[in-house]
């Protein structure tokens, strides 16, 4: 573990190290920390960008897909000359350009019940930058099992949502808020509903910020749901949400013990296969 910084690091990070409540300790915490970003798309790109720039020591990136033309409108780490390249490789290249001190672990695979715990367990904070309900339940269950905070972002059309699940002793998990999955077909994807790129930018950026707050100890530890509506005169709304639910089937009393991520069929739980816009997209 590195407990001091080089002169170059002082120069690079000085602007944030002089912040009250941040300091040298905050920078060292970032350097020693690891964050895994699941999904290197509209939310994952801005999140990775600001996590790398801030000096997070290790970044994991999980995505099975390759860069396509329709991604470039919002997935701002990917470039025209990396069309056809895997998103994790493209994002890793971009991150190296910003900050070569960051160690990048690239997982070019789809997160699934069988690989989730193995991939996620070595990171301090998990970012949900994915695009479908089944993966959101999977990541939440895995975060509960691994006792890690899950910074969850979502964006569709002109709207976005942000919440940190499984935070501290009494923070709720995704299932505490949404015990039953929505009907398939109601969970529409970006391809079907459209998305303004800058909306994913705002939410992904805020996900990076929440992760940085958690790592450096700047987070107040309470759970709030942030709602964003880009066309509204008053575009942001912060909601006070329930605490961990005693009767939650996963994080509630006796829940965790029964948790068996590997053998849960998340697709079936969510009512069958939902359309994968990343895969079918164009």
């Amino acid at each position, binding site marked *: 573990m590195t407990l001091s910084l080089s002169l170059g690091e002082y120069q690079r990070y000085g602007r944030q190290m002089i912040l009250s409540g941040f300091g040298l300790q905050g920078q060292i915490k970032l350097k020693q920390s690891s964050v895994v970003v699941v999904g290197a798309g509209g939310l994952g790109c801005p999140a990775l960008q600001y996590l790398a720039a801030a000096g997070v020591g290790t970044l994991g990136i999980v995505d099975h897909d390759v860069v396509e033309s329709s991604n470039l409108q919002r997935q701002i780490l990917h470039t025209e000359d990396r069309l056809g390249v895997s998103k994790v490789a493209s994002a890793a290249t971009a991150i190296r350009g910003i900050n070569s001190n960051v160690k990048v672990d690239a997982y070019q695979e789809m997160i699934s019940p069988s690989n989730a715990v193995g991939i996620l367990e070595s990171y301090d904070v998990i970012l949900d930058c994915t695009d479908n309900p089944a993966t959101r339940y999977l990541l939440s269950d895995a975060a509960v099992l691994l006792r890690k905070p899950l910074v969850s972002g979502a964006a569709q059309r002109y709207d976005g949502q942000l919440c940190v699940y499984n935070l501290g002793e009494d923070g709720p998990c995704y299932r505490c808020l*949404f015990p039953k999955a929505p009907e398939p077909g109601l969970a529409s994807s970006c391809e079907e*509903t459209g*998305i303004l790129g800058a909306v994913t930018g705002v939410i992904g950026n805020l996900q990076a910020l929440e992760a940085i707050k958690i790592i450096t100890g700047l987070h107040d530890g309470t759970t709030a749901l942030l709602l964003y509506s880009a066309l509204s005169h008053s575009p942001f709304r912060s909601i006070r949400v329930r605490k961990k639910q005693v009767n939650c089937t996963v994080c509630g009393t006796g829940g965790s013990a029964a948790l068996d991520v590997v053998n849960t069929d998340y697709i079936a739980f969510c009512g069958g296969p939902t359309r994968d816009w990343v895969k079918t997209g164009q």
Partner: protein
Amino acid sequence: MTTTTITTKSVRIEFGGGLELLFANQKSHKVDLPGTMVDGKPTNVHDLILWLRDNLLKEREELFLDKNTVRPGILVLINDTDWELEGEGDYVVQNNDEIVFISTLHGG
């Protein structure tokens, strides 16, 4: 001699996350609710949900309701607070309350 007092409660309703599409694509509504239900009990959020179905919903009830409550994936917010903290459907609606129905987003 009997006196009949008709009381209504004025409530602001907001829909988000795509739910507005079921309500004439209008996010913000100002509605006047009956102060009490036919059984004499004061109007609560459960009553409000059924009232919205009968009076404001334009299409595809199954995207809003499931077994007489909001369908899974919809969060109800009472004055910027998760309704679970306020008693869920049993919360008695107050004049000038703001009640938000928001569908969770999954895109990224």
